[in-house]
């Protein structure tokens, strides 16, 4: 079994455990204001980081400005105009492909 499968199964087990944990534990245990505030903001930090890393990341330690940035900028406009989810992705993909074809 290769490491990709291990990562998949580890994520599956962990994510399932988190879901079941919420359904099973007494309410008071996790439901504290500090924990909750952290849980509310953590996905924001992670999503922003993931967006930036996958737009500008190149290889393991490189950063680069390429066609992906143009695609993401277009997606940003679509998001700002409150376009539906799939439209945002299609716009990003189309603009990236276009810039690559031209450049």
């Amino acid at each position, binding site marked *: 079994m290769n490491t*990709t499968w291990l990562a998949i199964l580890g994520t599956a087990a962990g994510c399932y455990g988190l879901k079941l944990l919420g359904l099973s534990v007494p*309410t008071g245990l996790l439901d504290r204001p500090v924990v909750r505030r952290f849980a509310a903001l953590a996905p924001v930090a992670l999503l922003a980081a993931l967006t930036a890393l996958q*737009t500008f990341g190149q290889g393991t330690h490189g950063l680069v400005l390429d066609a992906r940035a143009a695609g993401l900028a277009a997606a940003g406009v679509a998001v700002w105009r409150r376009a539906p989810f799939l439209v945002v992705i299609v716009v990003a993909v189309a603009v990236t492909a276009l810039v690559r074809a031209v450049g």
Partner: protein
Amino acid sequence: MRRMTALSDPPAPSTVPPAAPAPATGARPDRAVIRDSLGVGVAVGVSGIAFGVAGTTAHLTVWQTCALSLLVFTGASQFALIGALAAGAAPLAAVVGALFLGVRNAFYGLRLAERLELPRWVRPVAAQTVIDETAAVALVQPDRRSTRLGFFVTGASLYLIWNATTLAGALGADALGDPSRYGLDVAGPAVFLALLAPRLREGGAERATALLGAVLALAAVPLVPAGVPVLIALAAVPVVLLLGSRRNRAGATARKTVGTAAGTTADPQRNLPKEDGR
């Protein structure tokens, strides 16, 4: 019409169509609940196609991509894992990043447990569908019967459609050859941006966290192994919370605290006031 999904966020209460006038008992007709649930299940479910494409782009096999949708079944964590693996992250770092994104489901579970009152033997099965969308639909229902119906219909329809479209996307992208030629490598970050956007509209704490998180992650790229920068971004959270609480203590007259702005979306309870208005 649901927009800007909710793979990571519960939809604003207004996106769930308003109930028909409720009878005096406060019960909702089953048909209305089923209609709302299927609307969410279908609209969000078809986004699985983006995940299928992203899986192939990240050089996963069709089986691996489908296994993620079947077993992990929480969109943001799935995208985070394959993105980190594609960037060459150590598997452990990739898994930890994905799990942090899955923590909010535990909080949905807490709220849902109170409302669903499920028998003990049902919980292990129901747990797999404790996600943004089911929480968003179920928690705005007025009584236990409609809460359960909304939870199970949303969960079942979303699970079926999300997995079917994942397979379709993975097979389709596989047939195309080099996905980056078609710009498909940008699907991942576009998904994250779309998931992030509704949170940025919530308040200053969210925007500060996002900005600081992105800057920290990019600054860390040359310095640490792949997969670790995204975890370093988490440091933005305590920084923003500390600065926010200090500012609150300083300005006692401030109308809106960062604390309240922060405690929103991962907290499905904010959907609850809606039912009082029904």
